[in-house]
């Protein structure tokens, strides 16, 4: 097979090949650290029943939606009371309710958010909890 304009075509194909496969070259042979969010804060240890305001599966999938709704309830409607699926009441507050138990932002929130390169804009208004470097 004779190639016409072979130099340009081969160069183009090499560029194509590396563009398509570069994630392989970046990652091969590296250990992939997976995120392990921690819930071993003093407040959670104190709880008799270690339960978040909603079931774990719901919180894992929908926490961002819940927080977004809470923001709207509290900031826009002035509504500070949340009734969960078990009819229990909670104060709508990121800093006083969520972060009261989950005081370990770095080991809880950031663990997955950094892994997925997600940057929630919670902390552009709220004050992030002070944590001791561990």
């Amino acid at each position: 097979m004779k190639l016409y304009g072979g130099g340009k075509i081969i160069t183009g194909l090499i560029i194509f090949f590396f563009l398509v496969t570069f994630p392989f070259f970046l990652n091969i042979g590296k250990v992939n650290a997976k995120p392990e969010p921690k819930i071993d804060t003093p407040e959670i240890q104190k709880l008799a029943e270690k339960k978040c305001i909603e079931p774990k599966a719901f919180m894992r999938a929908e926490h961002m939606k819940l927080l977004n709704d809470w923001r709207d309830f509290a900031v826009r409607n002035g509504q500070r009371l949340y009734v969960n699926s078990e009819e229990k009441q909670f104060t709508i507050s990121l800093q006083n309710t969520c972060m009261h138990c989950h005081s370990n932002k770095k080991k809880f929130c950031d663990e997955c958010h950094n892994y997925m390169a997600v940057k929630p804009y919670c902390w552009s208004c709220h004050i992030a909890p002070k944590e001791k470097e561990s």
Partner: protein
Amino acid sequence: MGSIFAFFAVIALVLIAFVGVSAGNMQYLFGVVIPYAAMIIFITGFIFRVLKWGSSPVPFCIPTTCGQQKSLPWIKQNKIDNPSTTIGVVVRMALEVLLFRSLFRNLKTQLSEGQRIVYGEAKWLWLAGLAFHWSFLIILVRHLRFFIQKVPVPIQMIEGLDSFLQIGAPLLYITDVVILSAVTYLFLRRVFMPQVRYISLPADYFPLFLILGIAATGVLMRYFFKVNVTGVKELAMGLVSFINPDAKLLEGIGVIFYIHLFLISIFFAYFPFSKLMHMGGVFMSPTRNMVNNSRMKRHINPWNYPVKVHTYDEYEDDFREKMKGAGIPVERE
């Protein structure tokens, strides 16, 4: 009806993945085997297709030009639309690939009052095509966050820009809205314009529905039926570092992810055999990538058979003495 065939083909693909994963528990097949196979088919198929094109000679100097050719010094040349240098060709190609400049010139031809031919502007195809392709590219680049451990800043910036309207949570991506509307327009255009419908084949509708399916499952997965997204990244990172995922990880990701991944696998496996190859083909079209220098350089047809010629000089060498003897003048003594 090509569109109905293509539509049900995509529906069938969705069902195959759905049944295979939810009833057949074939996460490994749909999450590992098929993606790898699709990747191999895509890369080798793409390379072979390009090499096959590259092995056809270009017999004539045939750039399609839309401006004044390089001519006498006092006639102004259009250096981009009628390039006589490589730089001109590069600029022209870049404008073509990045902005679809030739499509921008698209015209619609109509008979006015049944008699007079009238040309009007037709820019919607260009706009929808550009919106679709750019969204697709941005979405593709954005997905690199699943394949790189420490996501580089430029990719984070693209994602930040894409979601900067800060609508809802997870943040709405602008490209998600744009790609769905643009592909929908490109489909409706084929259905509602009689001339376009007439020339549309199943091979035109199938990629449209496939891309629509990919975008729709992606949107559903992000905003509605949530999947274990860290699990998705673990699987993706495993795929690009050749680490076998364990069964628990594979089972922990929702079905809709496998449908999304299966449609993408089909997309890439189908790519080298279809019109989607215009991605490589745009760089290989002689009407775009040639320099229009036919007045300066002779373009020799590589197909030309090597004709054996006998020049006058050689003829004279053969018969010089005899010519002299017969009194015929010779050029060289």
